């Protein structure tokens, strides 16, 4: 479903793990114009961190490739976050979304999608093997009283 954006920005970066920090900070900076609560900002940073880490670790396990982070503000105070890679893709998305499932070895917990689902209102995953993965997340921020 395509919804008109009030404002949007697209960032592209190589899948170096040091860009995880950049991506979540950039998302928080963009979301600041929605006047979020501190909790909402932390939720956004955490969900972006999980999705970007997945792209880096699982999209490109043996190489460096491109990751795109698209941030859009939609009508109704909704923030949409899209993380896209053109990496190896996920053969079984339903299985990958199960808690504790990981192919990332001991340094991963397998809880990334669980965290995204818990911190965002909606999480949609599209993936094709050898084509890449797109994760679209939406969160409606609580309306704040205008002074």
């Amino acid at each position, binding site marked *: 479903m395509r919804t008109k954006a009030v404002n949007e920005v697209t960032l592209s970066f190589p899948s170096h*793990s*040091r860009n*995880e*920090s950049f991506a*979540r900070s950039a998302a928080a900076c963009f979301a600041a114009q929605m006047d979020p609560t501190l*909790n909402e900002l*932390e*939720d956004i*940073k*955490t969900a972006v*961190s*999980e999705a970007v*880490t997945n792209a*880096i*670790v699982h999209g490109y396990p043996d190489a460096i490739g491109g990751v795109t982070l698209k941030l859009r503000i939609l009508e109704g105070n909704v923030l949409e976050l899209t993380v896209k890679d053109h990496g190896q893709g996920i053969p079984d998305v339903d299985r990958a979304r199960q*808690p504790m499932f990981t192919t990332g070895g*001991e*340094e*991963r*917990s397998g*809880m*990334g999608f*669980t*965290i995204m689902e*818990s*911190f965002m209102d909606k999480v949609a995953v599209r993936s094709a093997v050898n084509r890449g993965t797109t994760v679209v997340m939406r969160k409606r921020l609580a309306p704040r009283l205008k002074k």
Partner: protein
Amino acid sequence: MEIQVKSADRNLLLELGGELDHHGARAALREMEEALDAALPRKLVLDFSGVTFMDSSGIAVILRARQKMQLLDGSLLVRGVSPQARRVLDAAGVSRLVTIK
């Protein structure tokens, strides 16, 4: 990600600082394993007071610590967890497995 190691009488205290994400967790895991192998503690305390951000990478660190302390027949305490990190741990159900203060 910085880690301060303090060890005395087979009590090991690891004070973590900075951002505990996938990038930071690699170093944290390595340093934790080295400190555990050197101290073979009865009690491990992971102090998260200095952690400014944590995602599910922190879960992997805590679960690894739990596994290691079970092998050593010792105890694990996680303390100084921020509200943000606490929400990550609660969403993953880690608070049911590990003592968190």
